[in-house]
């Protein structure tokens, strides 16, 4: 993480591109929370890269003044991995939606998590495909009626992103609400500061296409994790992720631990190999002498 010489205010991170989101979209709250977190961490505009896939929420990097990489549908995590590995001094933050990260990109998540890749991933979870106008996503409620499921979704189960992240080895797992930008900003700050792969599930309602998981529902449903929740242990974290009180949704940090990161291990491996940028190539070539 690199801090700027002069402190920037949250608004200083905002670009002059106007968001394309519907009025009232939860993603505005996330954008605000991100700007506040970046400002609080004094992130340097030029050493920060925001990476995304495709979807409403994946447009977020355009609305910031940092570097950005608007990749392909589902491919934000592996693109971000390449960026971070190529230049570890960059702060790399990944943004995306539930379809992007857990459906088309769902195959990447387990590996980025288990490798403890040095990234922060912020998911804007609205339980629906918004940009294609309302189809069920992997996090949609079971039986949901939507554009391609007029008789209800036949999928018997939904993805629980928190449990998914926990079981695949993410070392920081949290949940926040777009309607509570203050807490969101604090959690994002902690996620960015965390060493290794951190995952923040942000419930960010889509008021245009999802008439079930609405802002009003979540406004009342969100409760903070109990004060006695031990977020250093995996099993209680899984229990809280999978068994919230009926009709309620937890916010807060479910799990936080330290484990060697991919970059740390790659660094050790290079050390063992005797890494030298100026290695004489003639020696490399001469290894092929008969």
């Amino acid at each position: 993480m690199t801090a700027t010489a002069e402190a920037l205010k949250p608004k200083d991170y905002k670009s002059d591109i106007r968001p394309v989101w519907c009025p009232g979209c939860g993603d505005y709250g996330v954008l605000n929370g991100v700007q506040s977190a970046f400002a609080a961490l004094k992130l340097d505009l030029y050493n920060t890269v925001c990476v995304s896939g495709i979807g409403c929420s994946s447009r977020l990097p355009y609305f910031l003044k940092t570097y950005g990489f608007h990749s392909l549908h589902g491919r934000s995590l592996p693109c971000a991995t390449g960026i971070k590995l190529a230049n570890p001094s960059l702060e790399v933050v990944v943004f995306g939606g539930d379809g992007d990260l857990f459906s088309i990109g769902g195959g990447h998540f387990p590996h980025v998590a288990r490798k403890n890749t040095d990234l922060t991933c912020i998911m804007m979870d609205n339980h629906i495909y918004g940009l294609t106008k309302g189809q069920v996503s992997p996090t949609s409620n079971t039986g949901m009626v939507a554009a391609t499921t007029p008789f209800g979704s036949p999928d018997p189960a939904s993805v629980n992103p928190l449990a998914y992240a926990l079981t695949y080895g993410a070392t920081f797992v949290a949940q926040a609400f777009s309607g509570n930008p203050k807490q969101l900003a604090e959690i994002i700050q902690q996620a960015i500061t965390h060493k290794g792969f951190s995952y923040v599930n942000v419930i960010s309602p889509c008021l245009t296409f999802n008439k079930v998981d609405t802002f009003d529902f979540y406004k009342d449903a969100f409760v903070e994790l109990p004060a006695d929740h031990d977020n250093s242990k995996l099993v209680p974290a899984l229990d809280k992720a999978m068994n919230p009180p009926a009709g309620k949704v937890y916010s807060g940090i479910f799990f936080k631990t330290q484990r060697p990161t991919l970059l740390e291990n790659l660094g050790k491996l290079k050390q063992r190999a005797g890494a030298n940028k100026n290695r004489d190539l003639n020696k490399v070539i001469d290894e092929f002498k008969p």
Partner: protein
Amino acid sequence: MSDLIIRIGGEGGEGIISAGDMVAQAAARAGLKVLTFKSFPAEIRGGYAMYQIRFSKDEIKSEGTGFNVFCAFNKEALDKNRSQLIPGTVLVYDYPGGDIEEEVHIEGVTCYAIPMSKIAKKDLDMYRAKNMVALGLLSYVFDIALDSLKDTIREKFGKKGQAVVDTNMKAIEAGIAYFKENYKKTDPFTMGHADKVDKDIIIISGNEAVGLGALIAGCNFLSCYPITPATEVAIYLSQELPKVDGTLVQAEDEIASLANVLGASYAGAKAMTSTSGPGLSLMQELLGLASMAELPCVVVNVQRGGPSTGLPTKHEQSDLFMAVHGGHGDAPRVVLSAENVADAVDLTVTAFNIAEKFQLPVLLLTDGSLGFRTESIKRPDPKKYTIVNRDRYAPANGDKYLRYQLAKSGVSPMSIPGEVGGAYISTGLEHGESSAPSFTPEDHVRMSDKRFKKLESIVDFVPPPEVQGDGPADVGVISWGSTLGTVREAVDMARAEGLKVKALHPKLVWPLQEKQIKAFAATCKKILIPEVNKQGQFAEILRGKTGIDAISYPIYGGGPFTPKQILEKIREVI
């Protein structure tokens, strides 16, 4: 004699490949030119495996036609090669004691029955030494660098202790002793010594050559996914990249591999991935992103038999359409193809240079037989390569950086994260000059034109294709990839017969160097295009771009052309 081809056939896992590698290395050390050819089953153990080595005192252009000597480790190998045991060839076979049940007599073929299994198993009590028995024997009978072979064995096994060296040496001597006791050499094949031992050579496989080329080019990032027959590129670089402070990661799939590469390139790395057909299929959408976002990257595709899982260990050049036209939308890319192992080094450097200079994806096509084969080649001198790096954005006071600023060449300076004032969004969405999304007809037209403009310069950036032969010709042969070497040899043979034949050897297969191709075709009455795929893919692309109505000569049996096949076709169409 100046040229000898020895083929060894047996069961996968019998040590044929390691034995073959050793004799190739020994011969190269003794100053002979070598080119090996391997064919093995897709399974780890069992099935027919073949290793062929061509030795020569002169430059070797291809695997050659057939063999002079065949060494059969078992009955299956003998049966598979029986039709090629033509008068004048030599058969060395495992008898008695192996699974070949009776003595072999073939009209005009010199047959040496050597109980290789028995010597190894019964006499030496070392079942695994059968390959070494054969090795000593072949080296002795055909006079191929025996002293050098012994040195190679001492070095190779020295690390494992003197006992291991002695055991292998005993096996080498046992094969030779048996031959001396039982036979008097009656065949004419004696390789002998090189006229001059060139010390400035290396022996290297096609896949390693790609890795070496990458290192010379300054590659510092590779993301891979295991796939036959490309894995050796990553295996080699996994040893070498960390030593130059580079990064190699194995991703969860080929999509992630190329995504890693594009991310790394965006962040300033010189990045590549290596794969084969199924992997390249998965990478198509990301290749489109690389074209659209103008990200330099190199994708090496070691072709294998397709479609689908196809024939993973067999030879084919059938990914050309995909390399050139795969993916959706109008996306410019560059496709190079390597003729031989030396070319694999040079063209990998060229691929990086083009990718960096023109900020687009460059695909380098090789194939399984080129990837696996080893050749003795002139030692590359890193100083002799020109290395090109991307044009970087240099911030000037008050300027607003326009990542996709229109430029005559189509190439606009690229900023790298960390550069103050250079922030932009790299994007797969259509955009204006600033990189902000834009779907206006004006922007789509001018940005498409910008991206395609680069191809016009690339046809001049790559040296013009070499013309073999001169004057007007009755037949002009144009081919690509490793078929070029075979064409070279066939055309030499045809010209030696007095036929009016010439050839063109393009290395840049997309965009086509149309000017040179048309000029070449204008001097030929007919154009013949041999290539190893069903559809005649290069012939079709060439016809589409140049209107040249070539005679397509596709083969697709899982193996490469022989020079004789192409020579016969030339005679037929002339």
